[in-house]
């Protein structure tokens, strides 16, 4: 027996509403996903990036089935509005993620947009893209004083153990 107002209260509802309606939301996400497959790194609002992430990973799962699979080809041709990306998806992205079972995308938050709306922004990328990394790889510098001292200490210890 439902005692609450189903339409007016939205406690616990996790599905996001974007655009003009469900169809508009899917169209918007389709455009963003096409841009992601083309450029492999895009910058959008946090909500859109979060929504697209699910569809991007599902698309790779379909692509892994191979381009002879009827369902996979239908999905790819629906979701990619620019048809020159369909071969790229099956021949570049699917083999790239062969060894991985999940986690093909990386999302990082950016500082808020500079406009009046100060919208939350995020950058979304497929792993293994050719661009510079978002999180710079930390390289240990051998030539710092502390590292040189530690190196000398380690050498002395090995000499003592050898004697």
């Amino acid at each position, binding site marked *: 027996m439902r005692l609450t107002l189903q339409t007016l209260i939205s406690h616990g509802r996790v599905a996001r509403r974007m655009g003009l309606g469900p169809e508009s939301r899917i169209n918007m996400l389709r455009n963003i996903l096409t841009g992601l497959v*083309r*450029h492999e*790194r895009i*910058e959008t609002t946090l909500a859109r990036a979060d929504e697209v992430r699910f569809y991007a990973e599902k698309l790779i799962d379909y692509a892994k089935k191979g381009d002879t699979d009827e369902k996979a080809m239908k999905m790819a041709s629906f979701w990619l509005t*620019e*048809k*020159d*990306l369909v*071969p*790229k998806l*099956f*021949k*570049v992205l699917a083999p*790239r993620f062969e060894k991985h079972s999940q986690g093909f995308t990386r999302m*990082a*938050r*950016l*500082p808020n947009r500079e406009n009046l709306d100060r919208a939350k922004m995020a*950058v979304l990328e497929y792993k293994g893209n*050719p*661009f*510079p*990394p*978002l*999180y*710079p*790889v930390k*390289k240990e510098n051998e030539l710092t004083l502390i590292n040189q001292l530690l190196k000398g200490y380690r050498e002395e210890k090995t000499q003592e153990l050898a004697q």
Partner: protein
Amino acid sequence: MNLSVLIQSLRCSLLRIESRLLQASGLETNLAPALAVDGPSLPPQLHPENQLEEQQENQEQPSGLLDSILWMAAPKKRRTIEINRTRRRSESKLIKVKNNIEPCLECGHLKQKHTLCGFCYAKVSRETALIRQQINAMEGGPLRAPAVETVVLYEGETPSNQDKDKRIVERPRKRPAWFSY
């Protein structure tokens, strides 16, 4: 007091209307001189000097919805500057202090803990834009994405074993320190 005066005036006016209608229709059976006017059959009220003001007030006093105008909330006293200050500067109205700001380890600019550093990302973004310009020049037109991987090589770098089947994008500058795999 006002209500009774109002009712009295209404009754007088109703009687006057009735007599005028009877006169006009000609159904009156009273025989009186022509200049004599049939007055109201009610005795006149005491305090005639106040009657005018009261009647004006009664006409002004509307009934029903507009009655509530006289019962609306209004401030009684001017709020002092001390009270105003305490309200304007209460904790809920001040800007909250953020304690999730820290310096970026690479460049030293300030960043939020859960966010990428703005300066470092701007560096990366500029370089990716230049790489994409080079890619566009190589492709020559829209909708010509090749079905091969891409690798970016800088000045003086030769493609290695891994870069055999890949499309090579050349950038005519030294490899930046923060871009290395």
